[in-house]
């Protein structure tokens, strides 16, 4: 289903929407078709102080977590990866939550879409996911290279291959004229802006904002990590860990393969 307002991805237009930022150089790479934008930037040797923005109309092997595939049909959605370098010893606890918050806030500012973040960083609108984030880091030449992969369903209205409740910006608000170039420019700027604050103050600076939009807050969930016992979700702490209560006992979750089932 093609949307009439669906403009092709365009380097110059994306560039025009970037806020002037502190990176000396920005390289924008647009592909008609690619295996995975994350894979491309992961393998690319990047220059210091350069921001790399890679996007494609279609991904053949869009990556989700683990073996999961990210559905990436031609022209319908945003498949975006950003890469840049950070100091080797940067404390990145909670960084992935901050990225989710940056995307949520961008879409709220641009289109008034008030979405929620499911810890650590899936973005939901009314119990349906429309954005996933996958972050990779690696050490190179004494710096830490980070690759932020973002998939946002934009115009997609049908897809038989997704095995969970999903939505798209178009399904959320059929009246709005969504522009992928604008979204990419603005949310990239937002992520960089938040990253600078993050490098100074850490996740603690974003903790309250995250908790305001914390999708799981006060929900009862079960997780294989806790043998299917009921967990009551509280908030995230200053490092982005999720506080839960299991049989009256407080626990902090920071990692692991978590698949929450929401019981409500």
């Amino acid at each position: 289903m093609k949307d009439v307002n669906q403009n092709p991805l365009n380097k110059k237009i994306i560039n025009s929407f970037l806020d002037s930022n502190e990176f000396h150089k920005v390289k924008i790479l647009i592909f008609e078709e690619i295996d995975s934008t994350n894979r491309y930037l992961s393998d690319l040797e990047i220059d210091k102080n350069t921001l790399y923005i890679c996007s494609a109309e279609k991904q053949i092997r869009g990556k989700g977590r683990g073996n999961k595939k990210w559905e990436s049909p031609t022209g319908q959605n945003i498949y975006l990866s950003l890469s840049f370098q950070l100091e080797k010893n940067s404390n990145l606890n909670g960084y992935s939550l901050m990225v989710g918050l940056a995307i949520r806030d961008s879409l709220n500012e641009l289109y008034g879409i008030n979405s929620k973040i499911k810890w650590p960083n899936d973005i939901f609108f009314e119990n349906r996911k429309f954005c996933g984030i996958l972050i990779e880091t690696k050490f190179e030449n004494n710096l830490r290279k980070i690759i932020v992969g973002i998939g946002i369903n934009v115009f997609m209205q049908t897809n038989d291959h997704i095995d969970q409740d999903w939505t798209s910006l178009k399904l959320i608000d059929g009246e709005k004229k969504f522009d992928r170039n604008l979204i990419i420019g603005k949310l990239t700027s937002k992520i960089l802006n938040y990253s600078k604050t993050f490098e100074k103050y850490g996740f603690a600076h974003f903790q309250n904002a995250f908790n305001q939009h914390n999708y799981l807050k006060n929900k009862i969930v079960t997780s294989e990590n806790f043998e299917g016992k009921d967990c009551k979700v509280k908030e995230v702490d200053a490092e982005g860990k999720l506080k839960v209560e299991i049989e009256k006992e407080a626990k902090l979750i920071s990692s692991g393969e978590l698949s929450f089932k929401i019981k409500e």
Partner: protein
Amino acid sequence: MDIRKVKKLIEMLEDSNLNEIEIKEGEESVKLVKAGSNLSQTLVAQPAAQPLEGKSITKEEPEKIEKDTEVEETKKVSGKEIKSPMVGTFYGAPNPGAETFVKVGDNVNEGDVLCIIEAMKMMNEVKADFSGTIIDIVPDDAEPVEFGQTLFILE
């Protein structure tokens, strides 16, 4: 005997009401005695008649050591360690079910990817800081690891 097995045994012993465990596997045997038990404060690893192959907790140690079990274990580690740069979950392969980055016996070069530590959906590659042969991979796949915990032992 695999050092991880010994580690598991130590954990089992600590959690149990037993004062000692003795395990025999073919030529090898290990006897663990709980520290503070009224039997004796020793950890005894008894070499069998034949020399053990590869790494073993008995290799360079006398038969009896008056130490508690945990100190004992770290002391027996030979070779250079690669430690976890962060708290997270250890993954030996790029994807579930995929071939692991490295296995025991592999020769690795400085800069080779050894594993991924995942935390809050950030996948962090851990590379070898130096070249060598992998003699042990300490955590099991998908096991939580602490900052500074030994992941690999190379020699």
